[in-house]
């Protein structure tokens, strides 16, 4: 098992990006990523350079495409075959999602609350959704310094609302990366948990995304585990009915992507939250190595829980990281 540092939303010259795939992969490697999804607008022609860029940079490139439609943008990854984005209308997005799934891909809402047309054409999600479980993920954090942005707060709330309603879907970050210019702003990383390292990274990454084995951060990697009398459960797993109490273990790994992020103030706080609200919050004093927190949780009435790391970044009190959910039947 290991956590793979991914950038899940990026563009090249094949749409309106400013980079070649090689430049994109090199820039990603410099930022400590191990994997990038190529999600050009409405085309997959950039994949022609995939093997060469992977060989040269060591970055795993996930095939993908951003459906850049009139009523919403939908990121699709893990499929090398094209699905026609031009048939989408506000009523039939589930047909598109099914076609993406049939070809082995995962589908997520891209920046669902970014202002729409004509400022940013189709950027605001206007598709009717009948079943949120049909989507694999919501891109909750879009762009750089994502957690402080209002549009992202709305996307994050949408995700939380859906979890509270009993749906099970992942939340990710995606820079919507278009050019190689360096930025001072904190960069989000979506970590995907690979269970079977003997399988190709790309396949395992998509499996992780589908199953919600996901942790998102602008700094340290936060992990979450629940242990019951019967078994141990990781992020994305479902704790079966009948397990009444669990020991929850939160890990905060400050050693990831060393030198590529900073916190203004080491005084962070870790929170355990879920459909019953925030029920545990602890201060963190040490910000080296991996810090562990344990707590006991009664699972009665629990649908899901996640860990959140809060602290001060660039003078702003903000969420720094969040895990995806552990679910309860």
């Amino acid at each position, binding site marked *: 098992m290991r956590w793979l540092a991914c950038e899940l939303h990026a563009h*090249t*010259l*094949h*749409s*309106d990006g400013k980079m070649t795939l090689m430049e994109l992969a090199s820039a990603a490697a410099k930022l400590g990523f191990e994997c990038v999804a190529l999600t*050009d*607008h*409405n*085309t*997959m*022609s*950039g994949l*022609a350079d995939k093997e060469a860029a992977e060989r040269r940079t060591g970055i795993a490139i996930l095939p993908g495409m951003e459906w*850049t439609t*009139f*009523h919403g943008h939908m990121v699709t990854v893990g499929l090398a075959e*094209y699905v*026609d984005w*031009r048939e989408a209308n506000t009523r039939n997005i589930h047909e598109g999602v099914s076609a993406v799934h049939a070809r082995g891909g995962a589908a997520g809402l891209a920046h669902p*609350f970014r*202002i*729409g*047309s*004509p*400022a940013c*054409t*189709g950027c*605001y999600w206007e598709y009717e959704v009948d079943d949120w479980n049909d989507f694999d993920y919501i891109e909750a954090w879009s762009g750089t310094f994502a957690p402080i942005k*209002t549009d992202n707060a*709305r996307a994050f709330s949408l995700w939380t609302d859906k979890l509270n309603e009993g749906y099970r879907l992942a939340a990710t970050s995606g820079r919507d990366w278009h050019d190689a210019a360096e930025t001072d702003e904190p960069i989000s990383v979506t970590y995907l948990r690979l269970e079977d390292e003997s399988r190709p990274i790309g396949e395992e990454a998509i499996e992780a995304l589908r199953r919600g084995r996901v942790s998102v951060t602008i700094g340290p990697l936060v992990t979450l585990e629940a242990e019951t009398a019967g078994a141990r459960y990781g992020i994305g797993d479902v704790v079966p009915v009948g397990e009444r109490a669990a020991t929850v273990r939160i890990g905060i790994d400050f050693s990831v992507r060393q030198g590529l992020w900073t916190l203004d103030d080491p005084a962070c706080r870790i929170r355990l939250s879920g459909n019953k609200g925030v029920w545990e919050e602890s201060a963190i004093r040490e910000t080296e190595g991996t810090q562990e927190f344990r707590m006991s949780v009664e699972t009665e009435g629990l649908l899901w829980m996640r860990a959140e790391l809060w602290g001060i970044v660039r003078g702003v009190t903000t969420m720094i990281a969040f895990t995806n959910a552990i679910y309860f039947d």
Partner: protein
Amino acid sequence: MLIDIQANATPEDSRTHVRFPFKLNEPACAIGIHFEYSPKRLDDDSRARELLEQSFEQYVLPERLALAKERTDRYLPLQNLITLSVDDPDGYRGACHRHDPVQSLWISEHDASPGLMKGKIAAGEWTITLSLHAIVTERCAYRLQVWAADEEERGERP
């Protein structure tokens, strides 16, 4: 020329696709495409602000409305956006989703403009689709020209 059309789009055409099929009677070495539209920008400042105000009402939370209005300038100038995609007799050959209002494109067995996929230029029914994402000016004139070509003719419009 396989296609040579000039037409106008209006704001009512926003969020629609316009399809231009053409027939290749025999396989070709390459297809050249020239596509342009004008104007790109909406220069009428008050009209642009009016359109943005409408979109704020639609997309911004009521409590953020005042702030969004203060920051209207960040979205200016408003622009028309038309993108082009290509289908050959067997399926999709890619799209050129970018803001350039003048695009000279090329697709052949060995080479293609970014966004399009190289490969055989087979005989049969092809389609160029123009996707009118946003037309913000009263009128937007566009021109589409498509022709079959030899490899060495790249970039030359007949």
